[in-house]
């Protein structure tokens, strides 16, 4: 295998629409946010159809979510970028998933562009809603949290990413090696 190929893809639908959430009325922000959530659901459904599963490892480590109007699709598995259906070429599966997303995003933008233009003509008094805070208030479907005592009592860590950590961990000790280590009957799955 050549270089590791985790996938990290971000698309700002706000910039495609020419508007950030704060520029729009709360109702339209909500509408677009909800449409993006639907798009992500459709993308996941497509993933279930398209992504080849041998062990299911790379399939289960996909992350797909939005923050404002920015959609993130990413997979930390070191071979995710090479996944392809039987007889296909390297990376075909991700190419197909990316095309699906981009087509759906273009369609969403085409639907909302006239609404965004109309919304911008509204008086500023009805804008400036803080949908972001409404989004923050809305709890995720399932959420467990735990405070980590990082940095030995000093300030909490900054700009740390679990995804980056997983990507690095899988680059250091491959998924296959982890599976083999587990098979050897280790009680700890941690491989050093």
């Amino acid at each position, binding site marked *: 295998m050549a270089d590791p190929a985790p996938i990290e893809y971000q698309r700002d639908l706000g910039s495609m629409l020419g508007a950030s959430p704060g520029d729009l009325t709360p109702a339209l922000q909500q509408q677009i946010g909800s449409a993006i*959530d*639907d798009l992500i*659901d459709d993308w*996941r*459904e497509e*993933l*279930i*159809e398209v992504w080849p*599963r*041998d*062990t*299911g*490892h790379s*399939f*289960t*480590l*996909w*992350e*797909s*979510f939005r923050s404002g109007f920015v959609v993130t699709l990413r997979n*930390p598995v070191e071979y995710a970028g090479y996944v392809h259906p039987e007889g296909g070429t390297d990376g075909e599966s991700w190419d197909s998933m990316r095309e699906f997303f981009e087509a759906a995003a273009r369609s969403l933008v085409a639907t909302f562009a006239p609404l965004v233009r109309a919304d911008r003509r509204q008086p500023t008094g009805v804008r400036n809603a803080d949908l972001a805070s409404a989004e923050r208030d809305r709890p*995720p*479907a*399932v*959420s*467990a*949290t*735990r*405070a*980590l*005592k*990082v*940095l*030995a009592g*000093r*300030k*909490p*860590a*900054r*700009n*740390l*990413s*679990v*995804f*980056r*950590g*997983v*990507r*690095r*961990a*899988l680059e*250091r000790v491959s998924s296959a090696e*982890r*599976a*083999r280590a*587990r*098979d050897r009957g280790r009680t700890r*799955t*941690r491989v050093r």
Partner: protein
Amino acid sequence: MTVADKVVVDSNLAAVLARLEAGAAGVDDAIEEELGEMAVGFFEDLTGFGAKREGGKVRRQLAFPGNGIWPVGERFRPLKSDYYVRHDRAGNRDLPAKSRPIVESGRSINAWRMDLKGATLRLINNARTNKRRHYSRFVHKVGDPVGQALKDAEAAFESRASDASKAIGKSVAKLIGGGNG
């Protein structure tokens, strides 16, 4: 301790503290590495990913359906279906009248993610049904009470996060210790 020693120690400490304050690559990398190992371990718990031996031959173990905590063998009618195939606790399935094929899903296991905000690690699953309703909190294996899978996942998360917290403390202490010579 000589003056020279003191100076060396002080400067090292200052350097370490400066690195901590500035989020130096070495410290952040160590923390991320521990978090990464923790998350990999947690997803292994969840999916049961690994390998198994059958008749002397090593076979990779399919993560489907649900060898781990999370039952990924749920089934649904694909592509915009508005009808989920639900099963009762005895495992009897309430099959849809329509004739669309039923395929193995992975919808709810595919909706997990973990993120870190400040010092809080969050575990999130936002899987939704075709009717756009969140349902992860109800997931369970056949024979288990409703929501049992989430309880088990949270327990695994707690345990992994607790280990990671200790490991992070050790890694950071090691870095500081190293700085002190």
